[in-house]
Structures are given as structure tokens and as C-alpha cells.
């Protein structure tokens, strides 16, 4: 594989695409939202159970490209057990990382753990929406918005 392509499709992304974590329904969820990317036909449903301001459990379902599936899978892993405000901080950092809005500090990057593999996305404006769809949908689920999220 070409080096630039490898930068975008890191091994961990391909792995999460093939075997996503927390994929499927969540019968006792209390926050749910739909998100879609009309340009490529991606759609995702996010299920969250929030207890005492903490994300007790989270899962996702839907169809999407490797970037969006891996991002959803790794997001569920990153936010499960966190408080809603901690999850929001990670979202802001993730957003800055994939859009290239600002350089993250070494400490912030370290705190993001595996999510840092999405740094390659900011060179591909068409794929930023794929990487951020799950996060926007999580935001909408927690905010209790019943409007479907769209990346357009």
C-alpha cells in the first residue's frame, strides 16, 4: 500500500472496520440518535445509556466506510465509562485533530490514545465527515435532539 494511503488507513482502523466494538442494539439505552452522510450514503444509529451524568454503556449500528465504522467503534471504546463532560472534551479534541483546526499539544494527543490514528484524515477534506459522523451523532443523542444529524 502507498505510504500516504497507509497514513490514512492505519492498521488499527482496518481492524476496527473488520471487527467493530460495541456494534449492535442496546436494549436499555436511554439516549438514541441517527446520523447520516448523504453524499456517500453512510448512516449510523447510536444508542447510549447515561446514568448519573456518566456514559454507562454505548453501542452503534449502521453502514459506513472503514473510516466512519472504525471511528464509531473507537469512539464507543473511548467514551464508555466517562462522564458526559469528559466525552465532550475528547470530542472537541478529536474535532480539532481531524479538521486540522489547531495543533494538539503532546499531552492532549497522549490523552486521546488510539484516537490519534485519525490525524491522517485532515489531509482528506472529503473524509473528515466520515470520521466525525459518529461523534456528532453521540452529541445529538446526549443532547436529546430528535433531529437526525447530517454532515451536510
Amino acid at each position, binding site marked *: *500500500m*502507498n505510504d*500516504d*494511503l497507509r497514513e*490514512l*488507513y492505519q492498521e488499527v482502523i*482496518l481492524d476496527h*472496520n*473488520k471487527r467493530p466494538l460495541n456494534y449492535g442494539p442496546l436494549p436499555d439505552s436511554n439516549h438514541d440518535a441517527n446520523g447520516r452522510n*448523504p*453524499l*456517500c*450514503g*453512510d*448512516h449510523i444509529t447510536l444508542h447510549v445509556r447515561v446514568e448519573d451524568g456518566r456514559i454507562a454503556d454505548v453501542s452503534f449500528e449502521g*453502514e*459506513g*466506510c*472503514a*473510516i466512519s*465504522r472504525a471511528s464509531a467503534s473507537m469512539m464507543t471504546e473511548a467514551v464508555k465509562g466517562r462522564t458526559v463532560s469528559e466525552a465532550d472534551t475528547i470530542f472537541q479534541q478529536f474535532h480539532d485533530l481531524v479538521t486540522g483546526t489547531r495543533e494538539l499539544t503532546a499531552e492532549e494527543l497522549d490523552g486521546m490514545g488510539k484516537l490519534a490514528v485519525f490525524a491522517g484524515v485532515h489531509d*482528506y477534506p472529503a*473524509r473528515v465527515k*466520515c470520521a466525525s459522523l459518529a461523534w456528532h451523532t453521540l452529541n445529538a443523542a446526549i443532547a436529546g435532539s430528535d433531529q437526525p444529524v447530517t454532515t451536510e
Partner: protein
Amino acid sequence: MTGLSTSVYNVEAVRAQFPILGVRVHNKPLNYLDNANTTQKPETVIEAISSFYRTFNSNIHRASHLLGELATNQYEGARKKVQHFLNAEQWEEIVFVRNATEGVNLVANSYGRQHIGEGDEVILTEMEHHANIVPWQMLCDQVGAVIKVIPVTSEGELDLSNLSDYFTPRTKLLGVVHMSNVLGTINPVEKIIEEAHAHGVPVLVDAAQSAYHMAIDVQAMGCDFLVFSGHKLYGPTGIGVLYARRSLLEEMPPWQGGGDMIESVTFARTTYNQVPYKFEAGTPHIAGAIGLGAAIDFIQDLGIANIQAHEHDLLQHGLKALTAVDGLTLIGNAAKRASVFSFTLDGVHPHDIGTFLDFDGIAIRTGQHCAHPLMQRFKVPATARASLGCYNTTDELDALAKSLTKIRETFV
């Protein structure tokens, strides 16, 4: 039909006329398989546009100088080229618009508003591009009319088994795509038009995809309206054509108002110019029309029948090469089709296919192709689509198949 030459189609000589085919993408030679999206432009088209701006740029129909006369002659000359290209009876039946989409919008807003009212019906097909759905939906929503939809079979053909049942005394228009941008299916529009006319219903044909693959004869076809875009015909963007029978154009009210479409204006009353000018308000895309004229010359020099024969060879080769790729499913399998392949690859999302192919220099389209109802019909969220033109080669198809095999190994 021109150019039924006995000489062998020399694809390398055709390629040499397209400067862009020499560029490199991600350091690979460009393998352009996105022609249903837009085609590349030959040197003669680029030169015609450049020459207009360099040597006789002027407004048309209103300048009292030599350059204005030259520009007018070229613009109107392009209209006559379109007339002959479509075998329209009269040049007055050719209206320049921005693209096929604008052509449909013009018919919906002019003819449609005049003839379609509450409780009336418009027949469309499940295979339509959004360009031939949304303008009708907007009109129907406003006037309280309804849309009826002819379904598509699992082979990707229109199900015409009970076509006559779709017509009622309230049917006011039928819109049909000549060739599917997703499946490559070529629809039997002549048969549909015959049935529609038997019920007194006029037909609009969307020829955006067919116009660069096969000869179009509006008189033999019998259509009442036909639209296409210049940019899919090896011509520039921003110019398209609406063909309509003169008797219809004469009766239709103008859609957009402004300069050039009038005969006389006072604040009390405006009288309109003759057809087709009453539908061409404001300064048109003069360079675009001239470029489109050059594109038609290019196609006719090559011979549309020769292009069609070459693309048929590519279609056969591509079907064989792609079905040999593990995990690949072609969407649609129409008996009569042109060189468009929509497919899915088991375990790889189309968007990822598009990105990986791009790094091999291969340009395709992925997504829903402005045809959401058709995607829903085949229950796929998206497809990858390779679509061919006059300059593509069997080697390029082999390269596509090879890349797809490699991609699948990465993902599965």
C-alpha cells in the same frame, strides 16, 4: 448517422486529442473512468473556447460591430449543429440552457405550470436521476398533482408489463431517462412514447447519459421534449440543451424574464421574442455554446457509431474482467446497456474503494449517484461506478480489476 468507416478505431489517436489524459494522479498515469459524471475535453473544444475569448469575444444579437456579428454567427451556428446532431426538424426547436437539469426545470415551470393542476398526474420511472424527479415533485407539491412511478426489475430494466395501466385521463406528462446513469440500462423510449401518445400524453426524455454514447434522432424517437448537458458530451460545463417540438414551444409561456427574450417592453406591457429566444433571457453562455458546437464536431468526426462499437467492446471486456474479481457484485444486468458498471465489493465500502483506486490513478464515482430511489430499489446504501467513454481502453479495465482484487485483500 455519420462515420460508419471501415477503418479500425484508433483509440491511441483519440487519446492523443485529450491533453488531460497525460496528467499523473498520485504519481500514477490517470485512468479516468468517471465519464458518466463528466467527460474530458478534446483539444478542439478547449481551443474553440479559448479562441472565442482571444479573438472575437462579444455579446450576441445586440452588438453593432464585427466581433458581435462573429460571436452571433458562431453561437447560432452551434444551435444548428445541435439541431443536426439530434435530427430536429427546425433550429427554432433548440433552446440553450445551463444543463439537462435546467432543461427539465424549464419544462416543469413553463409547460408544467400551464398544463398540470390539482389532481393531475405525472408519470416517472424508478430509474430517474434526481434531475427528472425533484422539479416535478416541486411542481406537484405546489399545484396538488401526483407522481406515479414505473418500477425497475431486478435485472435493472423498466417493468413495462402493464404500462398502459399507468395512464388515466388525468395524466399530463411522462418523464423517462433514456439511459440510466447508475446501471447503464438503455430504455425502450420509442415504445414508451408510442404508448404515451396513444393516451395523448407528451413525453420528456432525459438524454444526459445517452447523448454521448449513441445516435439520437428526436424525429424517429418521437419525443416531445429532450434534454442533455454539454459537459457529458466532451463539451464544456454550464451549457445544455432543451429540444422541444416547435408547436409546444410556441404555446409555452416564458420561464425567466430579462433581456433578449423580449420583443418590446413598456411598463404597461411586454411582448416576447420568437422561439427559441423567448426562453433565453439574459446573456447566455456564448463560449459554452461554441464549445458544445466543437464537441459535436469532435463526435461526428469520430463517428458516433464508431464510438458505440468501441464502447461495446469495452463493455464486454469490462463485464468479463469485473465478474472475475472475488466478492464483486454488479448491480443491474439489462439486455440493452451501455458501458457503465455499478458494483459493490463484499467487505469494502464504496467510499473506501474510491479512495484506494484514486491512489492507483483510477478515477471512479462512489455514492448514490443522484438516484436515491434506485439505490433503495436495489437495497444498497451506495455503489462504486466505473463509466467509460470514447478514449478508454481494455488495459484500463484490466488495471481496475487488478486494483479491486488488491483492495479486497487489504480489507477482508
